[in-house]
């Protein structure tokens, strides 16, 4: 049986931890609100871009631009967006598991380059696959648009040089504070919706030509996709941390409750014992 003093010490240590988890929860809640706002604000832009791309791409063949060319997927690049910091429940574990599944599915005859964004994914795969050639750490401190531009430039130059045949991005899609789902998207070659009917096409006046517009459009599109992924990932991370810290706070309360009970019992036991001793001694002296 633990001594009274030991139990008291544990309770106060748990109380300290609880204060920390509570504070972290509140910080995450505030950050989540901002991140969610940013993700929502970015949506109209991304939607309109997708609309325009659909329209432009229906006028050209896949051979019209190097970023549209489909090759046999021998060398695949996977951009994995995880968080830099832990204490966010199963957030990173889920993403890493999804990445492992993706790699397994590709089979052993394919070459896979992993490009981690965020320290957690980078650390995990460094131990298993060796140092990645490109990695982006500390991504919360860089504005998403800058980071997205930087990543896009590298991805595109490798793809155009034929070093990769396809590029995917794996990130956590934000559903709600309670639910974040790993999502996999193909960045390159750019996905075109081939299924649309031709009679829906809008006749535009183009300035300059369709090809020039497309050439400026495609890289931008990838940048926007990455940016969106980063924003969603940020919101997801804060959501996951908030949930994790919330349950940690609840657990700490529960633990404190049961320890307090134990403490009272131990105190009662020691009082009873002391009484017994006094009574026993008094009896003996008679």
């Amino acid at each position, binding site marked *: 049986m633990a001594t009274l003093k030991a139990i008291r010490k544990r309770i106060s240590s748990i109380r300290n931890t609880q204060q920390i988890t509570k504070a972290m929860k509140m910080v995450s809640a505030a950050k989540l609100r901002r991140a969610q706002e940013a993700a929502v604000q970015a949506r109209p*832009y991304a939607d309109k871009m997708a609309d325009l791309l659909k329209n432009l791409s229906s006028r050209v063949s896949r051979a019209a631009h190097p970023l549209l060319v489909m090759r046999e997927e021998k060398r695949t690049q996977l951009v994995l967006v995880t968080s830099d910091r832990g204490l966010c429940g199963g957030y990173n574990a889920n993403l890493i598991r999804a990445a492992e599944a993706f790699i397994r599915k590709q089979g052993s005859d394919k070459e896979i380059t992993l490009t981690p964004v965020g320290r957690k994914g980078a650390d995990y795969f460094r131990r298993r696959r060796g140092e990645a050639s490109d990695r982006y750490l500390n991504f919360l401190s860089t504005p998403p*648009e800058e980071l997205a531009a930087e990543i896009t430039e590298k991805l595109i130059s490798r793809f155009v040089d034929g070093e990769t045949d396809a590029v995917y991005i794996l990130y956590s899609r934000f559903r709600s504070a309670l639910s974040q789902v790993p999502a996999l998207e193909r960045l390159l070659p750019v996905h075109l919706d081939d299924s649309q009917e031709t009679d829906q096409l*809008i006749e535009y006046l183009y*300035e300059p030509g369709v090809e020039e517009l497309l050439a400026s459009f495609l890289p931008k599109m990838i940048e926007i996709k990455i940016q969106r992924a980063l924003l969603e990932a940020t919101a997801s991370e804060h959501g996951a941390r908030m949930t994790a810290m919330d349950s940690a706070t609840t657990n700490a309360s529960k633990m404190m409750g049961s320890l307090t009970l134990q403490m009272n019992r131990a105190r009662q036991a020691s009082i009873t014992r002391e009484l017994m001793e006094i009574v026993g001694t008094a009896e003996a002296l008679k």
Partner: protein
Amino acid sequence: MADKIRLRVVTPARLVLDEEVDEVTGPGVKGEFGVLPNHISFLSLLEPGEMSYKQGGTRRFLAVSGGYAEVLDNVMTVLASVAEFGSEIDVDRARMAKDKAERRLSELQFEDKDFAAAGAALRRALIRLQVAAKEAR
């Protein structure tokens, strides 16, 4: 026939503007273009530059970085990486950026890798100053 056109200016960070206006002028790659209500469907690449629109009797100015403009069904959508009203522009910061870019340009040779970047920075700063000055009037 509508006598107004809806103008939407969207950036990745926010929806800058969504209003019914009388007339829009934008910096196309092939030169400045004007859009009036009931314009034909139109898609253009935008240069970094000055954009303006007229609403009622007043004309307002925006600085936009490069992007795209689409006109469709009497709605004009401008997609730009950055767009700001002249009144939102921090003139001191723009002036500082201009000075810095000019200094960089005087130090660099045309062949240098950063020359184009410094030139673009100077251009952006100049546009912002110009737009801010027009709005202030």
